[in-house]
């Protein structure tokens, strides 16, 4: 059993009681809400006559359903309009802070909370969205939950949850040029499997994560869920504190100094005990692309698509399903795969540094004929900052569309969708069948720079050839 890790310390500080089921009643320091998984939760509160005892601990925004082109209200999609109306009404009725469109603070929930300084080390964070694991980048423990649990958190500010084990996922060394945080996490998922993390919280440790920016750490923690882990985190350090300092909800003045001391005390002890430890070498990580229908079906850009003989027996059935759906032959190269749509954005890779890296590739080049390429900033703030440094112009001159903030084609609940069996190069997090809005659409996951490279070449390309050119 783990002992002395940040996870243990934060868990113990937030544990209120042991429930009859044996689960822990766990306090939630920050609860984030969006329009998709909350309306039924608010309805259940009303049905049961419950109130929200800690309304100041919940923050809401609208992200999944927002159009990224015409955001005039009412939305063209009447169902989307109904959802945003419900959220507006629910937040008003229960006294919850709501960052609406045009507030300057709207965006993907996992982008705006860190941006506002709401996400802090040592908190338990919960949100009705699986990518809540993102917030672990700050040394928080952050759980994605379902709607009934959203109801529970609204009504009690607590969750009924069993404590997972802790696995230390260590990566050491410098990343090679053209290799990004996205490649690191795709590599980890490939090696440990999409259900390898079930039953675990992942602690990302080692010199590679120590050297990463907060935005890079968020990319890695974001996809913990794709590896099956309940959450993922990085111990807080000087990089964390530097990021938080001065943000709207970060502690100020004397509280700031007290906060740093507290946060430092929460980091995993040097002699902490883990339930499991795995170690990777950063030098072994190449630009990585998924070829199949689970995020674990990834390969290095210069590797062939595996044959059944290359795979463990238990992975062959899903590989066969993937060849059929993706229309790939075993052993085929992934480089050169023609792409129809290129999407840069999402809670995984929709932050300023992601757009900056993609813009470096796009600058002075043109999107290939017949390719639709678009960039969706993760938040209104990201959009504003990107425009301030001219990224919008670089993208526009290269032929990329520059959109408004939202989840967009990561899950295609808004008008941004694949058509038919189009192939998408996407900086998002899931390549499931039908994920990007067409039941036969095909998704290749990769870093934002690799998506930009695919857009320019019109096919899957090794970004290293463009950044070294």
């Amino acid at each position, binding site marked *: 059993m783990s002992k002395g890790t940040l996870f243990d310390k934060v868990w113990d500080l937030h544990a*209120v009681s042991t429930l009859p*089921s044996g689960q822990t009643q766990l306090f939630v*320091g920050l609860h984030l809400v969006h329009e998709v998984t909350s309306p039924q939760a608010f309805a259940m509160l009303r049905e049961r006559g419950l109130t929200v005892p800690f309304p100041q601990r919940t923050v809401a925004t609208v992200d999944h359903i927002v159009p990224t082109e015409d955001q005039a209200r009412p939305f063209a999609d009447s169902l989307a309009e109904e959802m945003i109306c419900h959220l507006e009404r629910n937040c008003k009725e229960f006294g919850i802070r709501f960052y609406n469109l045009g507030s300057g603070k709207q965006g993907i929930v996992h982008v705006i909370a860190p941006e506002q300084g709401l996400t802090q080390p040592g908190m338990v964070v919960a949100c009705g969205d699986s990518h809540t694991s993102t917030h672990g980048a700050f040394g928080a423990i952050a759980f994605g939950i*379902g709607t009934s649990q959203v109801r*529970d958190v609204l009504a*009690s500010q607590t969750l009924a949850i069993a404590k997972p084990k802790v696995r230390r996922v260590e990566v050491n060394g410098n990343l090679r040029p053209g290799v990004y945080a996205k490649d690191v996490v795709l590599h980890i998922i490939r090696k440990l499997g999409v*259900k390898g993390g079930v039953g675990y919280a992942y602690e990302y440790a080692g010199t590679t994560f120590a050297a990463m920016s907060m935005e890079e750490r968020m990319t890695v923690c974001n996809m913990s869920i794709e590896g099956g882990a309940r959450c993922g985190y990085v111990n807080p350090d000087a990089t964390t504190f530097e990021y938080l300092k001065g943000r709207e909800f970060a502690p*100020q003045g004397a509280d700031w100094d007290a906060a740093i001391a507290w946060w430092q005390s929460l980091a995993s002890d040097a002699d902490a005990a883990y339930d499991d430890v795995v170690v990777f070498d950063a030098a072994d990580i190449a630009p990585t692309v998924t070829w199949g229908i*689970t995020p674990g079906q990834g390969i290095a850009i210069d590797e062939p698509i595996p044959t059944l003989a290359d795979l463990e027996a238990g992975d062959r059935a899903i590989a066969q399903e993937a060849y059929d759906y993706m229309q790939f032959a075993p052993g085929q190269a992934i480089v050169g795969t023609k792409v129809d749509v290129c999407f840069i954005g999402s809670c995984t890779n929709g932050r300023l540094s992601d757009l900056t890296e993609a813009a470096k590739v796009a600058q002075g080049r043109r999107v290939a004929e017949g390719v639709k390429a678009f960039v969706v900033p993760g938040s209104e703030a990201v959009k504003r900052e990107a425009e301030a440094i001219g990224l919008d112009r670089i993208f526009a001159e290269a032929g990329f569309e520059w959109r408004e903030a939202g989840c967009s084609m990561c899950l295609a609940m808004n008008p941004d969708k694949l058509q038919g069996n189009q192939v998408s190069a996407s900086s998002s997090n899931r390549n499931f*069948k039908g994920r990007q809005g067409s039941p036969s659409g095909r998704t290749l996951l990769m870093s934002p720079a690799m998506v930009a490279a695919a857009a320019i070449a019109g096919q899957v390309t090794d970004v290293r050839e463009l950044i070294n050119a």
Partner: protein
Amino acid sequence: MSQVNAVTGTGLPLRGDDIDTDRIIPARFLRCVTFDGLGEHVFADDRAPLGGEHPFDQAAYGGAKVLVVNRNFGCGSSREHAPQAIARWGIEVIVGESFAEIFFANCIAIGVPCLTGDHETVVALQEAIAANPTAAVTVDLEQLTVQCGDFRGQLTMKEGARQAFLTGQWDSCGQLVAGLPAVQAATARLPYMSWA
């Protein structure tokens, strides 16, 4: 709140590993403010091209209460719409090789027990159901067994979740709200409660 000691009904084998929640209920059906009507859309995009041959459409499995799945079922999104759609179609219990954790938690929260069996047990159960779709399948939470005709298999279930069903306390909301005084007290340990 009701106790669940066992579920008996006909079965429905759904084969495949890593079946994600986008497949269980595609995102376009999440454009809603209630869970009403989700049952008819369960596995919509898997079912459409099969022209009635998907297990959720086959007449032989109509009215099934016991869903039998394989490895890592329910991975992906936290959408409770996925177990809601399955439950509203008529499923009352799920047996599988393994479940993704958020999906599992969502099932418990809405009163659908999820039990696991090893690969051989689950495959044999799927075959037994396919061979005789009208046979009653009994999933017993007390004994941790599944019976389908002559086939009998051993299952496992997380003890906390099992007790929650056996004692009828799977909806934890009431317990959590009752604990509010202790919650207030526990917040004294958290310095961030008093910052800004």
